[in-house]
């Protein structure tokens, strides 16, 4: 979604006759730089512009080109929801209600996701560290349990600990959502010769605001390259005034700046006003994003669907709808939305992967297999995909393919995925009744990633079958420490303690299990038994 309209070259004002390095002879250097820009070869384009600007610092066309090239280089598609930072999670000043009604909040998906039989049910589908059911497609997302600590029994430090943990194993959460951008900005600054290209502090923004073409490029430069939302807001505000409050572009940029600073309500107002001028897909997406950040999924859905009315064949809005449904835990609605996405874009990897995951977890591995095969045909080639193919093959009863798929997954897997693949190999081994192989695979998984809690839990169960209760108990307790979101670790530990007669421990662990998964039938039963033991005189 490139922003300002491309300014076709006014190359006439180019400088002297000395050849510019990197430009063929008899070719106008500005034209050549523009060619490079259009071919997305930003590095040579910037080099030529820098050289030209040294010769003539007041050449506006070159200045504009260089600004745009630098912006494009640092451009990130920010219409997706980014990961929330620790600061946002712990000091959430946008929270609307302490105890929202079920189904109206992302942070507390409510009863719908735990509904037995749905494919998002935690006892069928595993849960990520953020406390959400594993999605079919990896995307940054908000945390469920960490953020909703307000109404829970969590102590302050436990809440902070879970907030610092990233959504994936071994990853950390950025401190603020802006933090990642700032770091990227400084890193790219360093690589520049002779200091920053534009010294923002010395710019007279009001002067630029009167020149719309330059100002648009400068504003995007400030937002994407400099990561300086404060200045961008200043510029955008001035430009809006100049344009007589009637240009959607400046309002949307104003909103983007406000969003980066964290002023959600202001961003919302600007976006609504921008949409009043012209229904732009990007603005609808941004508006939805603002609502999601405010934890108002219903309002976000409304924004997305209004956008879909305005531009019926846009895929990104439909994807956003599907994602939002999944965040709230409405599996069935999400499924339909993903199907609609595929209707318009038959090779949307996110939609295919999500559908595949849904079918896999609702006892239709054959259908999942079809979807994954489609992904393979589209040219995706990753450890995760082969791993999923292997699992689908196994559950669909195609044993001959299973192990070759896992072989490929293992040969492709990097450090972050290899433990997961071995864990699944163990799962298959258990399914074949080969507990020795399962044991070894889990050991390998733990060797690859010593903090792989899922493997620890399964290894604990295998140790229990070998009558080594002490080893099992220590495995369960390390898994509980590493991954408090996994109810399996708590429940298994509780059951073991209960059988050994240590009811105090059992009670503690089963309460934790119920906090991780309030609807777990077996935990509830165990809790009932313990309560009865405690109240009996």
């Amino acid at each position, binding site marked *: 979604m490139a922003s300002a309209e491309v300014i076709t070259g006014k190359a006439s004002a180019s400088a002297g006759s000395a050849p510019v390095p990197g430009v063929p002879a008899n070719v106008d250097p500005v034209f050549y730089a523009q060619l490079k820009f259009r071919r997305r070869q930003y590095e040579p384009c910037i080099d030529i512009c820098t050289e030209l600007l040294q010769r003539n610092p007041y050449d506006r066309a070159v200045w504009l080109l260089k600004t745009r090239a630098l912006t494009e280089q640092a451009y990130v598609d920010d219409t997706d929801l980014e990961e929330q930072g620790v600061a946002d999670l712990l000091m959430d000043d946008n929270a609307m209600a302490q105890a929202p009604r079920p189904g109206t909040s992302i942070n507390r998906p409510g009863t719908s996701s735990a509904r*037995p039989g749905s494919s998002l049910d935690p006892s069928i589908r595993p849960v990520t560290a953020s406390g959400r059911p594993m999605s079919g497609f990896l995307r940054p997302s908000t945390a469920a349990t960490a953020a909703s600590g307000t109404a829970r029994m969590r102590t302050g430090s436990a809440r902070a600990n879970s907030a610092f943990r990233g959504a994936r194993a071994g990853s950390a959460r950025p401190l603020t959502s802006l933090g990642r951008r700032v770091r990227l900005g400084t890193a790219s600054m360093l690589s520049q010769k002779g200091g920053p290209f534009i010294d923002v502090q010395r710019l007279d923004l009001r002067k630029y605001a009167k020149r719309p073409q330059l100002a648009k490029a400068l504003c995007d430069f400030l937002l994407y390259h400099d990561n300086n939302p404060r200045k961008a807001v200043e510029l955008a505000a001035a430009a809006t005034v100049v344009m007589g409050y009637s240009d959607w572009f400046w309002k949307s940029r104003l909103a983007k700046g406000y969003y980066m600073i964290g002023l959600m309500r202001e961003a919302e107002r600007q976006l609504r006003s921008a949409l009043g001028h012209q229904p732009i897909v990007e603005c609808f997406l941004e508006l939805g994003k603002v609502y999601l950040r405010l934890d108002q999924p219903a309002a976000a859905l409304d924004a997305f669907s209004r956008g879909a009315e305005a531009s019926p064949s846009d895929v990104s809005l439909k994807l956003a709808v599907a994602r939002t449904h999944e965040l709230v835990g409405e599996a069935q609605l999400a499924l339909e939305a993903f199907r609609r996405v595929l209707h318009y874009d038959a090779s949307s990897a996110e939609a295919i992967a999500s559908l595949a995951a849904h079918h896999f977890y609702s006892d239709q591995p054959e259908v999942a297999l079809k979807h994954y095969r489609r992904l393979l045909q589209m040219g995706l080639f990753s450890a995760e995909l082969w791993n999923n193919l292997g699992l689908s093959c196994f559950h669909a009863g195609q044993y001959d393919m299973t192990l070759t798929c896992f072989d490929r997954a293992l040969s492709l897997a990097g450090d972050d995925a290899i433990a997961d693949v071995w864990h699944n190999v163990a799962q298959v081994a258990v399914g074949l009744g080969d507990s020795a192989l399962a044991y070894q695979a889990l050991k390998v998984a733990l060797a690859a990633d010593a903090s792989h809690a899922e493997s620890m839990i399964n290894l604990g169960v295998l140790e229990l079958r070998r009558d080594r209760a002490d080893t099992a108990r220590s495995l369960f307790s390390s898994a509980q420490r590493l991954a408090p979101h996994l109810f399996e670790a708590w429940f298994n530990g509780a059951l073991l303690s209960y059988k050994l007669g240590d009811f105090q421990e059992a009670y503690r662990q089963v309460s934790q299990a119920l906090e991780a998964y309030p609807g777990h039938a077996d935990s509830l039963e165990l809790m009932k038994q313990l309560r009865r033991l405690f109240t009996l005189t």
Partner: protein
Amino acid sequence: MSAAARSILRERKNWLVHELYVRRDFGACLRLIDEQLDASGGLSEYALYVKGMIRRQQGRITESLQLFQAALCLSPRNVRILKQVARSLQLLGKHRNALSVLEQAVVCGASEDWEVHHAKGVCYLFRRDLDDAINAFEEANSCHPHESTYLQLGKAHELKGDLTSALETYMEALESSPDSTELLTTVGLLYMRKRDTDKAFEFLGNSLTHDPRDPKTILAAGSIIQDHRDWEVALSKYRVAAARTPHNPHMWNNIGMCFFGLDKFIASVACLKRAAYLAPFEWIVQYNLGIVHLRTGQNASAFHHLSAAVQLNRRLGNGFHYLAVALGRLGDPDNAISMFERALKLDDGFQLRLNYCISLCNCGRVVEAIEQYHEFVRALEAAAKEDGDDELLTDPDIIIRRDALAKALNIV
């Protein structure tokens, strides 16, 4: 102030503590108790006792133990407090310490208290000291018969492997509390273990009339209904249970086999797969999956599931038996025969002999096949005699196969 006056002051508000405690108004009760403990310098025995009880019900056993021990310091020979200390120790899994406290209680004059003996029995049970446990429970019952004691006594008998005594115990308990669903279900399950399904069904049905939604009872009753090939009824029973326990692998296993009985193989495999997903270590699920696949002619899948089943349960004769059939159909006679031999070591039956004979016949080993044919006829007659009717000998399925084999092997 005299000691007596101080003691009266300490106990002045005991009635209110008691009142709040039995109303389960724990917050107010704890506040009052803390006030009283502050005023008395921690010397108020009843307040300590009630606080201990509340803490235990809140699941904080260690804290409640400390409170009871503090109360015990104030009156070391109080049986009631001794019992609570023992109970806390027992809940914490320290059964030996609990036993010694209980001994102390007996010394302090509680030899006629059923609770003490019951608690002793429970501790012995956890230490797998079954004879002592049984003695303790019987002692408790002689003081004062109680349902929970009967249940524990029955459990001790069951652990000892003495099902008849266990059954007697439960029946005795049923006389005093005939509408206890737990007892009724336990008796039903026991009859099932003794393979007396009619009796079992009687008790389970009785239990279901008191609590029609108990998943455990439904599962047991459903499995008996299934044994009588009444698939639709069993399925309707499971539908009730599924709402309560949607992730019970045994229930999914039974549902799968109901569908198998109804010849709905795809539904059956789907249910069994879900059971296997939820309980990967259950051999019976893998065994059933193997059988369903054998029935639908998917021999390779059947082989995988059956081999998983026999890996999980090495003493599963029928598992080896059907594994051999799968191997025979897959065209691997040598391994099939070795599996048949292995199955024969574990258990014997006319079906096994029949399948063995068919497999041998199919791969052209006539001499051995004839031998197995005679074994089969002998086993069939023996089985018919044991059942006491001639139904087996006139079963058309068996007759057709026997005659076909006889013809193929030239036996007259």
